[in-house]
């Protein structure tokens, strides 16, 4: 039986690269999918926030976008209600320079390098890791802002559980998801299905047309499934197979003030599959192999009116990419010089597109090698007690790409963990390295708009951080503070520049991303008192700005001097999140306060600063082998009027009631 399973997996490995890649039709947008390595095994000096299954379970009424907005320094841009298009980025770097990863695979859209995580439920994952300023050696292309990894972690013990979630909210919004996990000491199967739909027909004041209107053509429905199988054949061999299929169907509303009857519609479907094998050769050596296949389809239509029989635009896109990762880890430990862990990794990627709007077939391949040396050493005190541990990581990456010359990428990072095992640990960390981002297929090949002469963006980043935790002697409180300062330089920044109705991408500027990130978390949840409370405060001070404009065709006094020194668009200089949470016996109350300062959307004009407040109240009931929860959310409690994207109104106060059942 075991042999048969191995044979099947090997067969899948061999066929994953080529299966279904033949069905490439006319497409609009194809982006290169970045290769990412396996999970890092030692701290790297970068700021990392990690949320395990326990903390995710407490927030199962949220989707990922909402969870990240409430629990990280991520900048969210929403185009409407929570299920409509939204994009997220870290450190003001922009959507396409922040990688969203699933089990280490980049999910950034193949068209324009961007990501959209709206409405994927939290319950589909066991761990979310936010790696701010993620190194390019480890994460590859496009990580000037950072990387967010969604993953499952197997529970190799006998268990069976399920959950059901259903909600109804304003604007005829329905959401439901079901999930299950069964397992033994050798095998775990976990999966889930999700569905949501909404009319999104919220009222808003149109300050262009000076009237109160209902949002039109903003309805959507989305559904999908994520399945995960982990098999532990023995102590040496572990396999994983995972699949994520999702369909998003949405009408795209026009901007505020637009009076046309034009109707835009977009349908996306994505199939992502991966298989991985991990083999522990012995206590010092480990070999891993992963292969993945991603197939994306997008249909975009544009009509002059709902009744029009002819399309103004009709675009279809289908693309597939295959990726392969081979990783070898070797561990050496000595008495006096600490522990060395060496990693070597090879990555291969093929992206293909056949698009009329690209003027023909396009293909891009790359092959990368990574070498990494991790080291840690303990420092002992007078009584031979470990007082601290120093981690250091040095990594080098070389990528060979059929389109570009990518230089050697080097990253070095270090973390010192002081008093790690007692009640008040202190972590001091540092990381620096160079980075890059290659142009997307849209940037390069779009007929009449694309620019095949584009160069990759490149630069470097550096960050320092301190994290300190405090416990009271009676353990009735736990406080963690973290402060990080970062600086990145981004050369040959690609910006789409308008020329009338036509836009062109150009390597037009040099930018700097810099800022301070501060967080303070407090909780008393480690006690057994009936009243539990926690607070989380995050403050970001952002200063991403243009430092130089490169030569353009301008011959007179130019816009270039106005851009230099200007903050990047849609990044607030000051952002603040505050999240108090109280639970008493079976009641829970959470509040999320979000403040964003003013944000520029062009050289002279800004979106106003705003504050929004969301409130969630939940009551749980303990049943035999199950837990039932009933709750309600009020979003935008104060009915604030604000925009996160210029000319896209956001809903006022709205509500959602939900029912959740966890079965063990």
């Amino acid at each position, binding site marked *: 039986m075991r042999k048969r399973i191995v044979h099947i997996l090997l067969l899948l490995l061999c066929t994953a690269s080529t299966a279904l890649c033949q069905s490439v039709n006319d497409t609009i947008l194809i982006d290169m999918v970045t290769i990412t390595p396996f999970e890092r095994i030692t701290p790297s000096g970068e700021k990392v926030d990690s949320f395990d299954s326990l903390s995710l379970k407490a927030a199962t009424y949220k989707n990922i976008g909402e969870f990240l907005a409430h629990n990280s320094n991520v900048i969210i841009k929403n185009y409407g209600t929570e299920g409509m298009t939204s994009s997220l980025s870290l450190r003001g770097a922009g959507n396409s320079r922040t990688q969203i990863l699933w089990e280490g695979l980049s999910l950034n859209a193949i068209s324009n390098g961007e990501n959209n995580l709206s409405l994927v439920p939290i319950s589909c994952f066991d761990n979310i890791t936010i790696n701010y300023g993620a190194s390019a050696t480890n994460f590859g292309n496009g990580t000037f802002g950072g990387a967010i990894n969604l993953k499952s972690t197997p529970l190799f013990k006998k268990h069976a559980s399920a959950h059901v979630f259903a909600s109804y909210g304003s604007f005829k919004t329905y959401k439901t998801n079901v999930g299950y996990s069964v397992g033994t000491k050798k095998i775990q199967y976990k999966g889930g299905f999700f569905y949501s739909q909404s009319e999104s027909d919220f009222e808003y004041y149109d*300050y*262009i*047309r*000076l*009237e109160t209107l209902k949002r039109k053509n903003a309805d959507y429905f989305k559904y999908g499934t994520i399945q995960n199988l982990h098999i532990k054949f023995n102590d040496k061999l572990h396999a994983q197979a995972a699949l994520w299929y999702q369909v998003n169907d949405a009408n795209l509303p*026009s*901007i*505020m*003030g*637009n*009076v*046309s*009857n034009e109707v835009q519609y977009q349908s996306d479907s994505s199939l992502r599959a991966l298989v991985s094998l991990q083999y522990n050769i012995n206590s010092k050596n480990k070999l891993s192999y992963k292969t993945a296949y991603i197939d994306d389809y997008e249909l975009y239509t544009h009509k*002059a*009116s709902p009744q029009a029989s002819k399309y103004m635009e009709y675009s279809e896109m289908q693309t597939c990419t295959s990726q392969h990762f081979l990783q070898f880890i070797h561990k050496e430990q000595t008495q006096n010089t600490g522990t060395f862990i060496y990693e070597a990794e090879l990555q291969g990627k093929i992206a293909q597109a056949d698009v*009329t709007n690209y003027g023909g077939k396009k293909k891009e391949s790359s092959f990368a090698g990574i070498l990494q040396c991790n080291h840690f050493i303990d420092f002992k005190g007078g009584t031979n007690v470990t007082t601290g541990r120093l981690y250091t990581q040095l990594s080098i990456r070389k990528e060979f790409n059929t389109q570009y010359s990518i230089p050697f990428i080097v990253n070095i990072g270090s973390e010192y963990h002081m008093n790690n095992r007692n009640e008040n640990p202190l972590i001091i960390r540092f990381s620096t390295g160079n980075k890059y981002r290659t142009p997307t297929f849209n940037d390069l090949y779009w*007929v009449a708009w694309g620019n095949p002469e584009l160069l990759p963006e490149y630069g470097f980043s550096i960050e320092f951080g301190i994290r300190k935790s405090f416990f009271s002697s009676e353990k009735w409180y736990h406080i963690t503070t973290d402060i990080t300062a970062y600086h990145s330089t981004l050369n040959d920044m690609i910006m789409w*520049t*308008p*020329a*009338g*109705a*036509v836009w*062109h991408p*150009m390597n*037009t500027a040099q930018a700097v991303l810099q800022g301070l990130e501060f967080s303070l978390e407090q909780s008393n949840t480690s006690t057994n008192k009936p009243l539990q409370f926690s607070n989380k405060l995050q403050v970001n001070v952002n200063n991403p700005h243009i430092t130089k404009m490169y030569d*353009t*065709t*301008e011959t*007179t*006094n*130019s*816009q270039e001097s106005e851009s230099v020194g200007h903050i990047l668009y849609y990044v607030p200089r000051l952002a603040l999140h505050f999240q108090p949470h109280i639970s008493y016996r079976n009641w829970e109350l959470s509040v999320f306060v979000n403040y964003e300062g003013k944000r520029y959307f*062009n050289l*002279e*004009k800004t979106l106003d600063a705003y504050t929004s407040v969301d409130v969630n109240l939940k009551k749980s009931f303990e049943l035999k082998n199950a837990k039932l929860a009933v709750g309600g959310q009020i979003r935008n409690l104060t009915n604030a009027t604000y925009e996160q994207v*210029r*000319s896209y109104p956001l809903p006022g106060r709205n509500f959602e009631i939900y029912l959740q059942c966890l079965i063990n």
Partner: protein
Amino acid sequence: MKKNVLKIASIVLAGSFALTACDNGKDDPQPSEKYSDVPFVVCEGNFNANEGSIDVIIDGEVKKDIFQSENNRPLGDVVQSMEIIGDQAFIVVNNSGKVEAVNMFTFKSEGTCTGLSYPRYVVNRNENEIFVSNGSGDGNDYVYVVNKLSMQKTDSVPTGLGPNTMVVSNGKLFVANSGGWGTDKTVTVIDTKTLKLEKTITVGDNPYDMDVDAQGNIIVFCKGLTEYDADWNPTVVSNSAIYTINGSTLEATATKQFDHQFASYGGNLLACNGNTVYFIDDAVYSMTNNGEPTKLIEGTDFYGISVNAKSDEIWVTQTPYGASHSVSQYSANGTLVKTYKVSNQPNAVVFD
């Protein structure tokens, strides 16, 4: 202590009154002076960006987006045109489906006509009413009559496809039917008093722009027609042309047939001053008394042309790719006076 506090408070209060009394508002221009006799630059803004604006040039300096600064709200998406009529200006915002009426001196809004699907231009009808051309060639092609006071539509006249620029001459309204998103080759003539259709005149393909010469003739710029196949391969069906419509007989003649289509993708490519016609192709040309065109101003990325009838100066807008957009002021003989950086996609300069 209490006495000292009162003393200090009264000094502060008195001081503040004194300061305000000294402020005679000398730095603030009087409402009648603020926007008087200055050039206004109509800036379309990028499509689907709600950044259309009216910029103004005062004492050689550009003040951008005066509608926003005077009314604390944006104009909207794609500002197509502006027409000054008496003490008011009417600003057509194409993709926001409205016409804004503002006071010419303060630029404060005095009313908004909404409910338009694709408005393009405004001309005066009479003391109380204006004409608004509206239509994209999709069955919504009309000239609307709008009351200046209420800014409500009161009447409508059907036209050809894509009614665009309009001129009034000899009691008649001439409407260039540009085709909108389709194609047309006519000019609709309407009696301004009775609103009856007088004539539909055939000219060249896609008449975009019109002006009136010193004799009351209507000079029409026709862009020409290009068709595209399913793979977007173009086929030129007809080239650009200039027609003259006799204002009395309503007969049209082809004044100039070109052997190509004009290079600029703008729509405001023609202006008249007396008997001289200026137009934009690969440069700015002038043509007097229907003679041969003469290259007047060299340059690239020209988008719109306007003439100040008082000074005979020529104003040309430029929209280069990847750089700031501008408007340049030239003397009548084509000598550059000055260039001004303005907001995105300037298409015309309007004079009081």
